[in-house]
């Protein structure tokens, strides 16, 4: 099914982590590079701390906005558990960027389930090509904890065939001017982490 010329990417995490902005930047970058782009996002409840996935597909001609399981070339996860939860999306040989950040769900705090402590080895098992990045530290070094999304995006960009100029232009278009510098810095740091 998957047309060789279509690149599929998924971004996952917890509502409120900036997945929609990261997805918008990636879609804009692909469009600036001249591709047809389709994305799909979760709205509404996404702001309320739930598990969230955004999907981006680009190529010469794209029909469906949805990424089929087993077809994503890159998966970016802003949270450990979510990184493992969505692993079936990655295509064979695909690249995964997973943030070391752990956000404990209320279900764990309420004692109904446990937050697994063995996620790093399990992620290594499902993702032969895994970048396990300390995104939080990078974001805090920059002095803006909200740019973790751009750090992950930067790391993901190393696997995508889009020129670096379009990434910068896309970030400039999508991010408010007062936060532009820290977002650009985060993206560059993300690129250097892999």
């Amino acid at each position, binding site marked *: 099914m998957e047309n060789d010329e279509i690149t599929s990417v998924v971004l996952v995490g917890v509502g409120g982590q900036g997945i929609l902005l990261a997805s918008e930047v990636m879609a804009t970058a692909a*469009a600036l590079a001249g591709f047809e782009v389709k994305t799909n996002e979760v709205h509404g409840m996404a702001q309320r701390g739930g598990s969230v996935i955004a999907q981006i597909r680009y190529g010469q001609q794209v029909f469906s906005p949805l990424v089929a399981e087993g077809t994503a070339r890159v998966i970016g996860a802003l949270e450990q558990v979510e990184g493992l939860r969505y692993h079936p999306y990655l*295509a064979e040989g695909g690249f995964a960027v997973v943030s070391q950040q752990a956000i404990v*769900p209320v279900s764990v705090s*309420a004692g109904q389930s446990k937050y697994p402590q063995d996620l790093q080895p399990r992620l290594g098992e499902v993702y032969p090509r895994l970048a396990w990045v300390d995104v939080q530290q990078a974001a805090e070094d920059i002095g803006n904890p909200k740019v973790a999304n751009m750090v992950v995006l930067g790391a993901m960009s190393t696997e995508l065939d889009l020129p670096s100029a379009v990434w910068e232009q896309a970030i400039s278009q999508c991010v408010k001017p007062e936060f532009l510098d820290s977002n650009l810095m985060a993206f560059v740091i993300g690129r250097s982490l892999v």
Partner: protein
Amino acid sequence: MKKLLSGNEAIARGAYEAGVVVATGYPGTPSTEILENISHYKDQIYCEWSPNEKVAFEVAVGACLTGARCVVTMKHVGLNVAADPLMTLSYIGVEGGFIACVADDPGMHSSQNEQDTRHFARFAKIPVFEPADSQEAKDFIQLAIDISEKYRTPVILRTTTRVSHSRSSVVEGERQESPRAIGFEKNPSRHVPIPVWGRKMRVEVEERLALLAQEACQSSANRIEWKDRSLGIIAAGVAYQYVREAFPDASVLKLGWAYPFPDQLLQEFADGVDSLLVVEELENFLEEHIKAMGIACDGKNVVPTIGELSTERLLEVKARLNGEQITSLAAEAQVDISDLPMRPPVLCSGCPHRGVFYGLTKFDVVVTGDIGCYSLGVFPPLNRTDVILCMGGGISMAHGIERAGEPRKVVGIVGDSTFFHSGVTGLLDIVYNRGASTIIVVDNQAVFKQALESDEPWLIISEGPCVLKERALQGPRLQVDAEKCIQCGKCLKLGCPAIEGLEATPHVDFYQCTGCRLCAQVCPVDAFVAAEESDHGK
């Protein structure tokens, strides 16, 4: 110029370009961003959130009778609320173009049911347009305005979640104003459906429907893509996109305007292929009609009725049709992830509703909830909502439960917007019929106790800002003083996402905490203290 727009943004752009001057609506996912984006054109378009969909619809009807081009927006269940004006507007007809933009939610991402709005179009005997991407979403607004004015009919533009919330490129155009001057023209036999005139309108509705069906056969919204003729597929809306990926070689009749049914086009396509498959999300709306025409086809015998479609699900349909084994594209060596903690959406940290639900955990009462993000109070550890039906239903159901003789006290919970939407009429009923339910939004247990021990109806209004709108801190952020904490777990019963109970002593996430102090109120040993900036590294 080309822009990446969501379907909802594209509809807003379409309304602007099509010369719309009045836009109304009531919010609800996945429709909300349509009106939010129309509001950016406030110099050209009067735009309002109305208290409910019926009011929004009627405001737009009034405006359109002056010749103004209008759109009204809502989610699928909102059209139930606006069904009364819809059914008779079909008889009266419109002056300026009138589009009801209704967003369905297959898969129930943010909805309480999976109803299919196409049935409403047939019920009201009016056209329905179904865009498959953002460009069509924009273009179909212009088309729908043209058809609406040409035939004086209201029109439904039906999207689904994957059209409303997917981005794709759109070529923008210029705004075209309506040539008609605004002004209401007195014409009672056309505008007043008392029986003597209503019966004539009834005949005109049928005549209009026949003309619309002919027009639909010629419309640019419908097209045949001839390829291999051994299999022909009829698809509408976003299902078309999945069909093109799962069946790249098949001939396709793509319907953007499926009702009134374009019979000649359906027949022409069916005659041109060896076998026919109808792929539609949700109900067998098209298939039933095609079979009634005497055309044999596959449809819901192989395509799922429940939930969303996708390329993957259509590949399964293909395998089923060919009698092949269904295979998954996902990598075979998958690990077991059944132990991963679920992460449903939760009430935000600092949400003023949390105190209400927490307070209710202290009482043996029946709690009727309502539609809104506070429905999240149903999840553990709060677990304090017992039934939800529809907008405003919590208040009326509370009265019904009480009147039936339920021995426990009954409490209805409603948000402010839902209260004004349709909760207030239920409250009028409780007072008029001397009920004894307690209707609340409250964060104070003392007030609570008094109300719940009373025999009279109570309305308690608790005021607190939505933390999503007011992003400011409510007070200093807190942290747990590990020396004071006795690890009793009371704060974890609040279900606050900022309090992480991974270790014996709970930890407050610095960035999620809004300083609402609810945890400090329930802590028996005052272990919550102001957080220090330097301690947030964890």
